[in-house]
């Protein structure tokens, strides 16, 4: 069995859950293992139904009022009992602020291996080999868990394409009884927007990034216009932030955010390694730069070698026309 520890919010699956399901469906095929999705929460009927539409074998729900809000204590307690009784082969969670908050505790509680931040897997003989990135994605490390399962893994957001999730299953929904020893020690006091206008880039499916090639702050306007036309978020390379054209939270790269969107535009960005480590796992990378030798073209899928001040407005026009036409 392969278990997927789902994430949901407001009675809907979060996008990371589809990515985890893709990982599980692929691993399930390779290792000939059925896939079970696990939902923790309170009143999770809608989420369980949404999961039922996916091509998986079973949905396990664990409901309790103290699970309405995520807490590591309750998650570790419920999942320990579930995993001890069912002993799946592999347990997949997201490498998210939820997944990496409880998965390491769960691994210690079960005394089982955890491989965190996986970007790929392969089957060698009968063994599961999990790949993760180390040294800021400069290198990959292939690892094999030791001893008997369950093996725990967290998957990096963006590593598995959530759009590829297969649907059309007839999964059974099973309720797992929940017993908790008292309320969780950690209590949520409040949840608030961090800062007005803060760029959330780690979950943006499309990112339009500008670099030094924009020449001055005012010119960034064409990046924002393109972002609006495509429905994407704006990012920047370090020189842009150091020059204070944009605040630090827009920075993508080794000292900024690491992103893995499905589509990434690098505009007027030469592609220093510090920037590449923050975006090279994007599914599709478009580079627009007048220097054909710029290293960004080494990681790009599509490139246009021309003056960005001509290319970007033309691109914005096409996307605006597409929107108007649809």
């Amino acid at each position: 069995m392969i278990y997927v520890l789902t994430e949901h919010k407001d009675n809907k699956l979060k996008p990371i859950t589809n990515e985890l399901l893709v990982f599980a469906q692929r691993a399930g095929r390779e290792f000939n293992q059925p896939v079970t999705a696990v939902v923790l929460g309170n009143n999770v009927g809608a989420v369980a139904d949404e999961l039922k539409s996916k091509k998986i074998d079973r949905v396990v729900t664990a409901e309790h009022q103290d699970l309405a809000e995520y807490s590591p204590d309750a998650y570790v307690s419920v999942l320990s009992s579930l995993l001890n009784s069912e002993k799946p082969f592999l347990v997949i969670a997201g490498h998210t602020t939820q997944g990496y908050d409880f998965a390491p505790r769960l691994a210690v509680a079960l005394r089982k291996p955890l491989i965190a931040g996986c970007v790929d897997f392969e089957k060698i003989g009968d063994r599961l080999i999990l790949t993760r990135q180390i040294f800021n994605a400069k290198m990959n490390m292939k690892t094999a868990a030791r001893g008997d399962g369950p093996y725990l893994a967290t998957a990096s957001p963006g590593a598995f394409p959530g759009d590829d999730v297969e649907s059309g299953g007839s999964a059974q929904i099973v309720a797992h009884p929940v017993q908790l020893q008292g309320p969780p020690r950690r209590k949520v006091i409040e949840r608030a927007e961090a800062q007005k206008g803060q760029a959330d880039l780690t979950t943006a499916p499309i990112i339009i990034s500008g670099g030094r090639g924009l020449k001055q702050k005012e010119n960034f306007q064409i990046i924002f216009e393109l972002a609006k036309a495509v429905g994407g978020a704006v990012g920047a390379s370090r020189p842009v932030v150091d020059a204070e054209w944009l605040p630090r939270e827009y920075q993508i790269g080794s000292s900024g955010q690491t992103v893995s969107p499905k589509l990434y535009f690098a505009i007027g960005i030469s592609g220093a390694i510090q920037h590449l480590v923050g975006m090279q796992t994007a599914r599709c990378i478009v580079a627009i730069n007048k220097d054909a030798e710029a290293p960004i073209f080494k990681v790009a899928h599509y490139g246009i070698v021309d003056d960005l001040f001509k290319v970007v407005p033309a691109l914005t026009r096409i996307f605006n026309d597409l929107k108007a036409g649809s």
Partner: protein
Amino acid sequence: MKIISCIKPVPDPASRLVINESKTWIKDHDLTFVASEADNYALEEALRLKEKHSGEVVVISMGGEEAARVLRSGLAMGADRAIHLLDVKFKGGDEFATAEALAKAIQKDGGADLILTGVQSDDLGTGMTGVMLAEFLGSAHATVIVGVEANPEGKTIRAKRELEGGINETVELPLPALLTIQFGINQPRYASLKGIMAAKKKELKVWGASDLGLADDHVGRAGAMYEVKEVLIPERKSRVEILTGTPEEAVAKLVEKLRKEAKVV
């Protein structure tokens, strides 16, 4: 308040990293080691909490001379004393084995009210060790912390977590607790000359695996939960397709490719 701040020595970010012959790690013999960046933020936060609430700050690290080095700089920054986990048996340990050894050491030192680690290390970068340490100690914990407010009299602490989507979540935990500190929470101080001189007189304990009562199969490579099969540089063949023509023609081709071929818009 007694605060323990964990520091991992990692290769100086400016180093050129080369994979070793057995392809299981990097060649680390001739490298300069420094404290992992996020651990500096954790130590700075520990020092500020001590300045506000009094008590002591203890820095702890595992490794050879590189660990002694980051501990000395932690003492120079203002930590009161240091614990160096030094034993050839610790070599080859993973996050799990490291967390277990740290937990034993912290218990041997009489525990702590608060334990701080960086959110993740600059080398493995998985963010596992701190959270595992909390479970070994049986303490409450919270990750990705961008703000801390301690209430030592009430035996609680409030911490602000940085979640996805620009959301901050404030949580309250009972002490003792462990927090993993996010980059940028503060501006870490530099060691002053006075601090560097004072550091030489501060206590630095050295403990090995047997001091911690750790069985041989719980330390180092034997205690690791996974084995490294291969470390490699990911292949980056140039795969770029350059779209030509006037800017209008090139972008038209691009959008067509994005829609029909890559299917991303």
